[in-house]
Every structure is written in structure tokens, then in C-alpha cells.
């Protein structure tokens, strides 16, 4: 559709558009208009909510289908760890924590080398500029979303960052098993960032995880994460850092990595 539709022309299409019942060219024209028109955007949201209501058919979600979904997202090939319970039971005694401990049965092997991330030799001492380090709640185990998470400023900020459309996400995978996601970094345009542990097992208490960013090929400490981190805030210049890695170090951290990375960034979205 070459010309832009007027507000009234678009408005007439909103019902059909909300039901996916317009031609592709019309859909584009409507979307162009919606980007600039909160009123029409709200109307589409309302139409869709109504449509969702009348579409409801009282069937349960097929359990076998969940197994397929779980297999798709469970890239480690582990057995399905959870499945939907058949009935809602708000008061059931088994109050499993929402946030589960990282699985401990998949110990990382130290097979990777720093060359894998194109960095300097592991033993090399490099000048390190600590961009900024803010370590919070090193050993705090948050066992539920609320209220303990709500009480934790970092957790709350990390959650908000995760939902921020401007945030940049970087996935770190285990160097021993590239299919295993170890942590996610959420980086806001301001440089405020959060490292979120998704599968890094607890270390001995005299050890710590340490996060590194590569600036011109050299590892720079971005933060000491603690022996059993959940989420840790740090600051980073996203324009300067090209990739990320995590090592285990002696508690307190090291000026330069002394071990091969346990996890490193693979891709960013």
C-alpha cells in the first residue's frame, strides 16, 4: 500500500486487523499507524483481549505436548525436570522454590583454553582496569520471586532490566559443553548491567566466580561474583567490550584470570 492511510481508514480496519483478517499490505499500513497512535494501539489490545475470551475452549493443555516443549528448551538433553501439575493447588504443601539451585550434577570440566576466546595466555599478568565492581548478596540464596526477591534491590533491578526492551542480552555458555547455558548478562544502554546465574554450580567458599570483559582482546575484570551467585550488578562500557567470560578464582578475585574460562559469551541478541 503506497499511500498512508488516514486515522479513520485505519480505525475501520482495527477489528479485522486484531483478528489477523486483513491483507498483508493492510497489516503493514495499520502497523505503521499504530506505531504513532496510542489510541488505536489500545483499541487493538482490547479487541485481542475480547477475542482471547471468546476463543476459550475448556480443554486442558495436552501433557504430551509439554514434554515436547520441555525437550526443545532443554538443550542439555537432561530428563525433563518439571512438568505442569494437572490442577491448580494454591495451598499445596510442596512449595517448591521458584528459583531453584543450579544443578550440581553437571560439573564443568576445565578443558577450554583462553585461546578459545582469543585472549592472552592464562598465566599472563596484564594491566587490569577495573571498570566498576559492585558485588551484592554474594551468597544470598533467593528461594522465591517474592517477597525475598522484592526485598533485594539488585534482584529487582535485574528483573526490571530483563523486561527492558532496550536491554542487550548476552548468553554465556559452559566451555565444557556449549549447549549448557551458564549465565545471562543483561546490559542496559546506560552501561548498568546484571549477571544472572542460570546454571553455575556452587563453588567452595574459598573460591569465587569472576566475570571478565574483553577490551581489545584483553580480559578486564568486571566483577567478583561470589561462590554461589544469583544475580550481580556491574557496570560495563558495551561499546568497548567485545566478549565476556567467567573464571573461578580464589575468593576475593584476581587481577587477571588464572584459570581457563568456565563460561564465555557465544552470541548476543
Amino acid at each position, binding site marked *: 500500500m503506497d499511500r498512508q492511510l488516514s486515522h479513520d481508514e485505519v480505525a475501520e480496519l482495527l477489528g479485522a486487523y486484531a483478528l489477523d483478517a486483513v491483507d498483508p499490505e493492510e497489516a503493514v499500513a495499520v502497523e505503521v499507524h499504530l506505531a504513532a497512535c496510542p489510541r488505536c494501539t489500545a483499541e487493538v489490545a482490547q479487541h485481542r483481549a475480547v477475542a482471547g475470551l471468546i476463543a476459550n475452549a475448556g480443554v486442558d493443555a495436552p501433557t504430551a505436548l509439554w514434554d515436547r516443549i520441555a525437550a526443545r528448551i*532443554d538443550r542439555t538433553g537432561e530428563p525433563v525436570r*518439571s512438568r505442569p501439575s494437572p490442577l491448580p493447588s494454591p495451598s499445596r504443601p510442596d512449595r*517448591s522454590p521458584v528459583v531453584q539451585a543450579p544443578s550440581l550434577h553437571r560439573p564443568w570440566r576445565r578443558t577450554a583454553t583462553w585461546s578459545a576466546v582469543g585472549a592472552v595466555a592464562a598465566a599472563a599478568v596484564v594491566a587490569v582496569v577495573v571498570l566498576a565492581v559492585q558485588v551484592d548478596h554474594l551468597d544470598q540464596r533467593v528461594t522465591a520471586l517474592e517477597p525475598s526477591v522484592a526485598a533485594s534491590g539488585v534482584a529487582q533491578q535485574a528483573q526490571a532490566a530483563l523486561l527492558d526492551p532496550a536491554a542487550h*542480552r548476552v548468553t554465556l555458555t559452559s566451555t565444557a559443553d556449549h549447549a549448557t547455558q551458564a549465565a545471562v548478562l543483561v546490559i542496559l544502554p546506560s552501561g548498568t548491567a546484571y549477571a544472572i546465574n542460570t546454571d553455575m554450580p556452587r563453588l567452595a567458599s574459598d573460591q569465587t566466580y569472576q566475570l571478565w570483559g574483553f577490551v581489545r582482546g584483553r580480559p578486564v575484570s568486571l566483577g567478583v561474583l561470589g561462590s554461589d551467585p544469583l544475580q550481580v550488578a556491574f557496570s560495563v562500557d558495551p561499546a568497548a567490550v567485545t566478549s565476556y567470560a567467567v573464571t573461578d578464582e580464589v575468593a576475593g578475585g584476581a587481577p587477571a584470570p588464572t584459570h581457563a574460562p568456565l563460561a564465555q559469551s557465544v552470541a548476543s541478541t
Partner: protein
Amino acid sequence: MPSLETASDAALVVAIARMHERALAEAYRRHGGPVFALARRVLGSADLAEEVTQEVFVDLWDAPERFDPGRGALRTFLMTKAHGRAVDILRSESARRRREERTVRETVTSGYDIEHLAWDLAVAEQVKAAVTSLPADERTAIEMAYFDGHTYREVASILGQPEGTVKSRIRSGLRRLRTVLPQHGVEVAWTDS
């Protein structure tokens, strides 16, 4: 400590963003049934509906940030995704024939009624009553567009009515439902909060 079962949908999505599989399982338990039912209704095929449902939930896992709790309920978000995907499949060339066969079969067996649709049992009757209260031409236009995946132009052609009329009826019917549903005791939730 609230359990997963009592967490809000928005809190579930936060947990999903943190890669907690149980949160996705809970979202699936809450919404998987309606998502699957809608896809099956549109596609007329349980196999294709399973594909769509799987895609919708895997997408939620991969890109939870696309759900904005400020812009609507999670149920609506998932249903919209499922419907869009189902319609894409339907409009692909290979599926066109299947739809034609199905349309014939459905016309024979059940027409365009939503008599067999029931939701959470508590509100199914009210939703049905609200839909039944629509003027017949509005109801038909909505059902043909939404459940059968026809564009409004196709609906107009099938019914032998002007396109503009069908377009208007879909919109006015949805607006009427929005007004009528609360009168039937059904709240139309825009957001989770």
C-alpha cells in the same frame, strides 16, 4: 512465600526470563489449553495445532521480553501469537486445500456456531450468552474471520456482502462484546495487574 501456582503471570514471565523451566511449565498449564484449542479450531488439525502451541511457548522461553505486561494479559499475548501463526499456516498454499475440505466438513457438521466452546466452566455460559447476544451478522463475521482464518475480504466474498460492511461489523461486534461481556459477569482483563 508464594508458590509458583499463585504467582502472577507477569512474575512467571520474569522467572521464565531467568531460565526457570518450572515457570514455563506453569505458564503452559495456565494457558496451553486455550492456545492449543484456538490453533486447532483455526487449523482443523491437532497435529498442526500442536506445532503452533509448541512454537508459541518455545518463543516465550527464547524471547520473554517480547511480552510487555503493561500492554495486555499474558493470555492475550499467547493467543494473539497462536492465532497469527495459525493463520499464517492456513494461508500458505499447501494448507489452502485442507481448509477447503475442512470448511465443507464443518459446515456440514457444526456450521459456525460456538456452542461447543466452553471456557473455564465458571464463565463459559456467560461468554456464550454474550456472544449469542450479538447481532447475527456481526457474530458470523467475527467467527468466520477469527475461527476460520478468513480475511474480511474473503468473508465478504463468501457471504456476498460489501467488504466495507464486513470490516465494520467485525469491529462493531468486538466493541459490542467488550461492553456486553462485563454485563454478563465476564471481566475483560487488559493487563495482569
